[in-house]
């Protein structure tokens, strides 16, 4: 074991031996050349650095927010937007509560591109490995969000009301409920939809179904049930307006539907309403609801607890 003085003397001697003396003349030339050929626009580089840092901070913040939100439990309760006070009886009309028109998320796409560009600049310009890895992860997260954010389905039937009116439940039939209508007649579908995601969303209305073949059943308008504690067919309806649903919150909807020109009345046989042998059941089991979450508009297909069936001729439809 060497003493402190010897150790320091040897260390200083070793370091002094590594000292090469004055810089070679070539170094001056090299440095001059590097400085004079540096063409990188300083302001642009500065903007790039700031953008990259901002994008990285934004991506980390988004991940943290999502982590906190995902950890939050969901409890189902009524929607947070108060229902309007009923003033006079309201009947749902075709077109009520229907979302029409094109939707292009231009602003969101721009923000996504800016964030992605900032992260790409960070990835390309940083020499520290950890920051390059962080930027690469950030780009992957942004790409993942971009590819999945429009396809998430945060609205579903979880609990509440479901049914249609008028309807009959034919005895001896395995097809379940059948809508008691004929061709081109209206009927009403009752449905509670719940925000099953961990983030709030805004129900904007019913997906536009008017483009569907007129021979088929269609959903044409939407209102809100103000009281589900009474018989649904006599429960007052309210005009639909965009409603905010927190995580786990729900809203009771009354949806006006048309049976389609080919629908036929289910024929009563032997005292019970059953589908006659010359008739088949045409059914649908999804309702399109439009909602907005994190500024992105979504088209959700809410799956019904049971298929809504309409009697249909067992043959060609005129």
């Amino acid at each position, binding site marked *: 074991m060497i003493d402190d003085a010897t150790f320091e003397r040897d260390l200083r001697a070793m370091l002094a031996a*590594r000292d090469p003396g004055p810089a070679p003349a070539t170094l001056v030339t090299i440095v001059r050349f590097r400085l004079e050929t540096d063409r990188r626009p300083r302001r642009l580089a500065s903007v790039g650095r700031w953008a990259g840092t901002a994008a990285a901070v934004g991506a980390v913040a988004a991940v943290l927010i999502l982590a906190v939100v995902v950890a939050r439990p969901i409890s189902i309760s009524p929607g947070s937007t108060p229902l309007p006070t009923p003033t006079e009886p309201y009947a749902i009309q075709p077109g009520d509560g229907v979302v029409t028109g094109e939707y292009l998320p231009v602003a969101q796409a721009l923000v996504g591109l800016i964030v992605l560009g900032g992260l790409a600049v960070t990835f390309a310009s940083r020499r520290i490995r950890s920051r390059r890895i962080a930027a690469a992860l950030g780009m992957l997260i942004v790409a993942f969000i971009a590819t999945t954010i429009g396809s998430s389905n945060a609205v579903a039937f979880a609990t509440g009301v479901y049914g249609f009116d008028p309807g009959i439940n034919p005895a001896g039939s395995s097809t379940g409920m059948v809508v008691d209508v004929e061709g081109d007649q209206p009927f009403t579908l009752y449905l509670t939809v719940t925000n099953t995601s961990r983030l709030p969303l805004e129900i904007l209305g019913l997906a536009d179904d008017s483009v569907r073949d007129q021979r088929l059943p269609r959903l044409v308008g939407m209102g809100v049930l103000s009281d589900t504690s009474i018989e649904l067919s006599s429960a007052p309806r309210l005009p639909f307006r965009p409603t905010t649903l927190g995580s786990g919150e729900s809203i009771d909807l009354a949806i006006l539907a048309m049976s389609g020109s080919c629908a036929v009345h289910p024929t009563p046989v032997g005292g019970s309403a059953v589908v006659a042998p010359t008739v088949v059941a045409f059914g649908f089991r999804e309702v399109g609801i439009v909602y907005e979450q994190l500024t992105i508009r979504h088209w959700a297909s809410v799956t019904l607890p049971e298929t809504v069936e309409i009697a249909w001729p067992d043959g060609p439809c005129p």
Partner: protein
Amino acid sequence: MRMDGPLGALAIPIGRGRVTAETASFAALVEGQLDRAFRLATVILGSAIEAEDAVADAALAAWRSRGDLRKTDRFEAWFGRILVNVCRDRLRSRRRRPVTEMPASEIGGGRLTEAADFRDGVHARDAMSRAFETLEPDERIVLVLRFWHDLTVEAIADRVGIPAGTVKSRLHHATARLRAALAAMEVER
């Protein structure tokens, strides 16, 4: 075009570049530090060739962030900090790309020749140099700044950009690790 000052000889454009007054003024500041920077980088990195690259990189990094320099009289410390950071990055990347170890006696050969009379000293320096190569980049840097550059703890803290307490801690750990490495070499012999 004729430029005054240290870059006067570079009045003729080189490559795609063009000499501006700002470039010339900045280059003059850098050139004033080149010898010191080159020597410091070589002592830290243990390679004159790599030290040249490190100094050139540091000069370019300083040029690109020259807006951060508030006072010209702080240029030496500011540039020194950039150089130390560049050397640290190089040492770290070197750990990821192992290179063939060069015997310490081949580093700074001229000076070692002058010290040829002190055979024991050369042996001790060789062992010390090999032990020094085993240190972490941050440990190397504080040892060089303290025992070669003869900076105070406070000056090292300013140069490296860390608290003085951290400098003391790093010096303590670095010397302990250096001693341990030397002891291990003694055992191997």
